[in-house]
């Protein structure tokens, strides 16, 4: 008893309870765990909290399922119901009790279900069913989309609404299917297979349903359904409303969407966007085309200047007019719907011809004028036997002012001669000696 006497520190009840609470709170095996049991002493409290005991053959534990945690519960608890709960143990100091605080609850059986899904997932993964390389791209412009879902559910409404808004002239073919309960899997498989038949002319399939409880979505975890998604020859979108746990169909589909509306957005482009894109490209091309023509025009103008054609050539002016007329027509056409096809096409064909003709005409004019210039040039005259006489830097056109003994330079076609004037005369004699 001496040992006992040595421990003189005296704790309060609160101290000890506090220590217990701390120990419990810090034990990993008591927190964030799933436990399985049967419900008894069930109380749905007016505050929204649910209190019950969870028991098995050997033990019982008090449990509290608070309002903020149980608000998403999609079934009603009953005495004797077997459930699996997720949560942690906490100590209620005032009553010296410990309690299991429940965050999530599933009906028992789901645990096994989850395991089965996990196993199936692994098996199909090994088979390569989820291989990203198997995934087909969605068509950019589907003309007809196929939908596998219930004709009365929220999913079909959402898909139709979204798809028609994005692309008003769209064709939709619905393969009605049961999406939950007995026979749902077979019904979904039949729908996917039917829409894959070429006779319906479908471009892309959306298969799914609106959100629901884990069990409601089970059909999309069934092996035959998952396989039907993977086997679809047509691109297929899995459109099962869910937040956390993706159904296996998401993995097998070419594309997965978290809601049917999102699936419709993935499948159907916004028509106006595509039209704008095309319009932009054509607008850019037309601008560029005008630049090319303008550059071409400038080059010709420059060439004419360079050649120093002095005479205003009415012919050229006419061509100038023709060109600006073409340009005007092109710039006008920008404001119209450019790609409005046949018209533009013909216009451009005309343009092509005109430009070609114009080029030919220019060539012709160049040739003509080039020879004219040559005729006017003194070189041609000299070639014919005439000569030019210079005194200093001035050409000599008259005998006036020329004296005997002056030095002059006589230029002929292929050279020049320095001469001294022997005499001058006012007579002009060709071919005779003076």
């Amino acid at each position, binding site marked *: 008893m001496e040992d006992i006497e040595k421990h003189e520190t005296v704790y309060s009840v609160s101290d000890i309870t506090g220590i217990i609470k701390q120990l419990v709170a810090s034990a990993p095996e008591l927190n964030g765990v799933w436990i399985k049991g049967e419900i008894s002493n069930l109380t749905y409290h007016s505050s929204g909290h649910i209190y019950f005991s969870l028991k098995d053959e050997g033990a019982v534990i008090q449990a509290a399922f608070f309002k903020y945690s149980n608000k998403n519960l999609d079934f009603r608890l009953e005495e004797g119901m077997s459930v699996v709960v997720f949560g942690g143990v906490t100590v209620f100091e005032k009553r010296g009790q410990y309690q299991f605080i429940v965050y999530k609850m599933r009906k028992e059986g789901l645990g096994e279900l989850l395991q089965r899904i996990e196993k199936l997932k692994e098996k199909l993964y090994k088979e390569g069913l989820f291989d990203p390389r198997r995934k087909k791209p969605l068509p*950019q*412009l589907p*003309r007809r989309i196929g939908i596998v879902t*219930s*004709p*009365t559910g929220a999913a*079909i*409404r*959402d*898909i*139709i*609404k*979204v798809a*028609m808004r994005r*692309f*008003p*002239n*769209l*064709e*939709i*073919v*619905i*393969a*009605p*299917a*049961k999406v939950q309960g007995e*026979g749902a899997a*077979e*019904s979904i498989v*039949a*729908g996917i297979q*039917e*829409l894959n038949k070429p006779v*319906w002319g479908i471009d892309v399939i959306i298969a799914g349903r609106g959100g629901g409880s884990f069990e409601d979505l089970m059909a999309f975890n069934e092996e035959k359904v998952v396989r039907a998604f993977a086997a679809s020859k047509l691109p297929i979108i899995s459109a099962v409303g869910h937040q956390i746990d993706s159904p296996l169909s998401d993995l097998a589909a070419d594309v997965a969407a978290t809601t049917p509306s999102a699936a419709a957005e993935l499948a159907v482009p916004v*028509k106006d966007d*595509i*039209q704008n*894109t*095309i319009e932009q*490209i*054509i607008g*850019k*091309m*037309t601008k*560029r*085309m005008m630049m*090319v*023509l303008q550059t*071409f025009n400038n080059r010709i103008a420059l060439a004419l200047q360079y050649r120093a054609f002095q005479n205003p050539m009415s012919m050229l002016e006419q061509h100038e007019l023709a060109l600006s007329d073409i340009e005007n027509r092109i710039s006008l056409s920008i404001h119209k719907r*450019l*790609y409005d*096809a*046949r018209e*533009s*096409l013909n216009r*451009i*064909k005309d*343009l*092509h011809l005109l*430009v070609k003709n114009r080029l030919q005409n220019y060539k012709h004019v160049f040739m003509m004028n080039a020879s004219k210039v040559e005729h006017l040039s003194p070189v041609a005259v000299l070639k014919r036997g005439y000569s030019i006489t210079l005194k200093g830097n001035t050409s000599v056109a008259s005998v006036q002012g020329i004296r005997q003994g002056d030095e002059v330079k006589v230029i002929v076609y292929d050279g020049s001669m320095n001469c001294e004037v022997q005499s001058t005369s006012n007579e002009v004699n060709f071919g005779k000696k003076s």
Partner: protein
Amino acid sequence: MEKKAKKPTFEEALEELETIAQKLESGELTLDESIQYYEKGVALAKFCHQKLEEAERKIEILQKQPDGSIQKKSIKVKEDTGEIEDDEDVQGSLL
């Protein structure tokens, strides 16, 4: 530009249109080539435009017939909600 025997798909046409626009933009073409590309571009844009208008607004549902065959049936939906009109009588499954 070579002519394709087969009609291009919408995707191919749009892609070619983009390529042509880029080539024209590059400024490395002769006048003749520029005009040719421009012409081709206009034709492609027209083709894409036609494709966009090709489909006609239509909603159909597949229904199993007494003889076991599957036929499609046109249905009306409410414009605002996308809901199938009440008076439409449709089966819920192809099975």
